[in-house]
């Protein structure tokens, strides 16, 4: 019975001591809790310091702008094109953007009146531009901006800042904040900070001076859509604020992207100002190519028409038409230095660029591979199911080979042949298991195989 009392006594004594100590400690100014010292990391202390030897200093220099991106320069500049065909080739390159875009006058007017109106009204807004690749979306918008900038120089409309980002040029959607800030202020910071700074700029009232309006072009919008869609939301939310005059032009391929991919609140902010770029018709394609070639008479007009009609029937992609014409010019150049690009040259270019290599590949493969393809076809026709297993195909192969008079090969050799066919994707094979039970699917139509292997 004595022990507990003794213990309580002891505890009491201890308590009082602690109390006293506390009092004594409190009487001086309470110490701020010290943050645990971060151990100084001296990564490579012994390496002699060269100015760019550490990541930090490099980053600092890049952000300050001491390191500017540059390309190596060649000793002798490239000479200008001499022959007419050569000149035609240069003008037909997709990178050569003409002064005025033919066949996009209406869209041009739509966009310029939209942006101009917003600039003159002093308010922000959004527009969504869609269309399949190669229909001149980005080219038209950059054209509009160029036009507006020259107007702003003449003081017809208020001055504005132009920022353009491309979803595919960013490693992740949030990097768009960094890119926008870089183009606005020229400084590079991490994305969290960039977002804060942009938020401040667009949503808070700026004290003294009025900010210039900003025109923001967002290319490849669908890439910026993540699961949370925070980036798209921010980009489309800023224009709605009264404090910032932000005009956002968004470009993507699919017409129904806002409804299909974006959340309700984002779609609502995107608004209903939309513009669709139709695929080029063959007449328009012909006009585009002809306009580029003004001044050179290297092309037969019929040849251009042929290329235009072929491309328009497939995709209406202007890039494709230009590439085909350029290839035709190359072929003509190789062809005894012909002066004029004829229908024949365009036809050859079309054949080489819109090509189906599979029939040719079947024709030139070895006899064993051809027999295996034949037995896969036979097996598919026998069972009526597209998917077959190697064991079944091999049994079928034995009989097909017997009919053809081909000495049978072992399973090892047959498996190797199947692997070769799988590597060039004439057959779809299972990557995981390479044995009797692996599944095989034909990747060409059986008609192609019949056509390639028929004996004349």
């Amino acid at each position, binding site marked *: 019975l004595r022990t507990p009392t003794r213990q309580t006594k002891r505890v009491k004594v201890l308590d009082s001591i602690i109390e006293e100590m506390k009092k004594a400690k409190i009487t001086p100014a309470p110490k701020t809790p010290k943050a645990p010292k971060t151990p100084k990391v001296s990564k490579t202390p012994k390496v002699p310091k060269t100015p760019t030897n550490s990541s930090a200093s490099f980053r600092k220099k890049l952000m300050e702008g001491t390191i500017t991106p540059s390309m190596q320069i060649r000793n002798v500049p490239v000479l200008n094109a001499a022959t007419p065909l050569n000149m035609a080739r240069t003008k037909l390159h997709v990178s050569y953007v003409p002064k005025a875009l033919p066949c996009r006058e209406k869209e041009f007017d739509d966009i310029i009146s939209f942006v101009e109106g917003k600039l003159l009204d002093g308010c922000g807004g959004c527009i969504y531009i869609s269309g399949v690749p190669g229909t001149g979306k980005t080219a038209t918008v950059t054209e509009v901006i160029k036009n507006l900038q020259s107007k702003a120089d003449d003081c017809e409309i208020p001055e504005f800042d132009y920022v353009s980002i491309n979803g595919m040029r*960013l490693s992740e959607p949030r990097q768009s904040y960094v890119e926008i800030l870089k183009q606005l202020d020229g400084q590079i910071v991490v994305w969290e900070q960039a977002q804060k700074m942009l938020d401040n700029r667009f949503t808070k009232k700026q004290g003294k001076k009025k900010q210039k309006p900003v025109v923001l072009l967002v290319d490849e919008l669908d890439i910026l859509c993540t699961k949370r869609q925070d980036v798209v939301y921010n980009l489309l939310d800023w224009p709605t604020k009264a404090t910032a005059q932000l005009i956002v032009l968004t470009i993507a391929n699919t017409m129904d992207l806002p409804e299909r991919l974006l959340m309700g609140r984002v779609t609502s902010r995107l608004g209903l100002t939309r513009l669709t770029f139709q695929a080029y018709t063959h007449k328009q394609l012909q006009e585009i190519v002809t306009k580029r070639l003004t001044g050179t008479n290297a092309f037969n007009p019929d040849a251009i028409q042929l290329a235009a009609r072929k491309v328009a029937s497939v995709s209406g992609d202007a890039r494709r038409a230009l590439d085909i014409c350029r290839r035709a010019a190359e072929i003509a150049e190789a062809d005894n230095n012909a002066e004029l690009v004829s229908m024949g040259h365009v036809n050859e270019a079309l054949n080489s660029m819109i090509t189906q290599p599979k029939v040719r590949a079947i024709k030139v493969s*070895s006899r064993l591979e051809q027999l295996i393809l034949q037995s896969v076809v036979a097996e598919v026709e026998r069972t009526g199911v597209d998917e077959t297993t190697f064991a079944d195909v091999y049994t079928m192969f034995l009989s097909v080979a017997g009919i053809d008079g081909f000495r049978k090969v072992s399973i090892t050799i047959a498996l190797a042949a199947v692997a070769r066919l799988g590597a060039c994707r004439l057959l779809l094979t299972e990557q995981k298991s390479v044995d009797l*039970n692996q599944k095989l699917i034909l990747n060409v139509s059986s008609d192609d195989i019949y056509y390639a292997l028929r004996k004349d």
Partner: protein
Amino acid sequence: MDSSGFLKVKNDIKNKLLQQGPLEHCESERKQVFNLLQRTIEDGESNSALLIGPRGSGKTTLVNDALEELCSDKNFASKAVLVHLHGLIHTDDRLALIAATKQMNLDNAVDGKVFGSFAENLAFLLACLRTGNKKTSKSVLFIIEDFDLFCSHHNQTLLYNLFDISQSAQAPICVLGITCRLDVIELLEKRVKSRFSHRQYFLYAGGENAEVDGLNLRMEKIRNLLTINNNKSNIVNNWNKSVSKLCSDKKFRTLNQRLMDIDLNERTLKNVLLTLVSKLKEKSLELKIEDFETELNEFEADEVIEQLHDLSVLELCLLISMKHHIQIYDNQPMNFEMVYTRFVKFANASSHIQNVQRPVVMKAFEHIKHMELIQNITGGSGRLQKEYQMFKLLVTSDQIMESVKGWQGLPTEVSQWAISSLI
């Protein structure tokens, strides 16, 4: 005949077989690729192209050959930068970007170390290429091997950017992709596909004339591969004579036809010839048709049957009972118990194998499993006991019969049981 001379000749032939020979079957493709690269370098034109062909058809050789000729120009280094990327090494865009930055020797690469994060590197590379222009900046040649693997990268960011640069007024670049997949264009996303210029060059193993004149071309190839020209000693003359004699032989042609029927790839032929040359003895420096024939037979041999010869009789008996099972039940999966019951029936009736304990049979069964002659199909879940796990046989009945036939000293009972399934 002295041994040093012999060794030298042998080495010469081996070296000739091992190094890449001159390109013969794809002159027109080589010219096209060469012109494409040259136009990029000389005229500052941006281009993109794909080189497609089955494995071993000389795609890399062709590009290297064209590049070698371009590099022999002494002003090459002042006009162009080469960037080699490989889909198996640069497994994501980050690694590929670091490699490209290094090889282009941009300002953020110091002594082969690249600074900055992936986003910074991408922005920097694009900014660099944007500052360049057609007239004054160096051309960049991107040679991308195993191009199809780059198509599986996230968003195809790198491909999009490379193709985009090749289609806009920036530094002149040429993107040359090398791949063995015929359907590689279908892997590209639609906007990447639109930016690709759709130039494709196809290479085939046999070349253009393979259908018409394949065998003669092949014989010519073998003659070229084996003949030694640089050295005119007695041994060499004898060797060359024996080679031309061999090539004109009718049987040799038939054997080669068979090899070509199986595989047109030149690499296979070289492998066969290399083993033959390595086996040459000093006494008879001559390739014999019989040797070639044995080599071919070995090449054609079934690996599984050879593997079966290493089994014990007990294991073979187990395989035979499995074979009976799949014959009766038409390839249905089975487990150890079923096989064991079938085996015990035979073992009781046979005079040779009678008192084999169950654990021993189990052990033999495990051994067969480890040799991957059977495959577990119940999935890796360890809940089922070993005896009841279902599996499939990975050997055909024909292969088992073949190995039973070729088995030295197999008890007659077993071979009879293999033929009939009565017991």
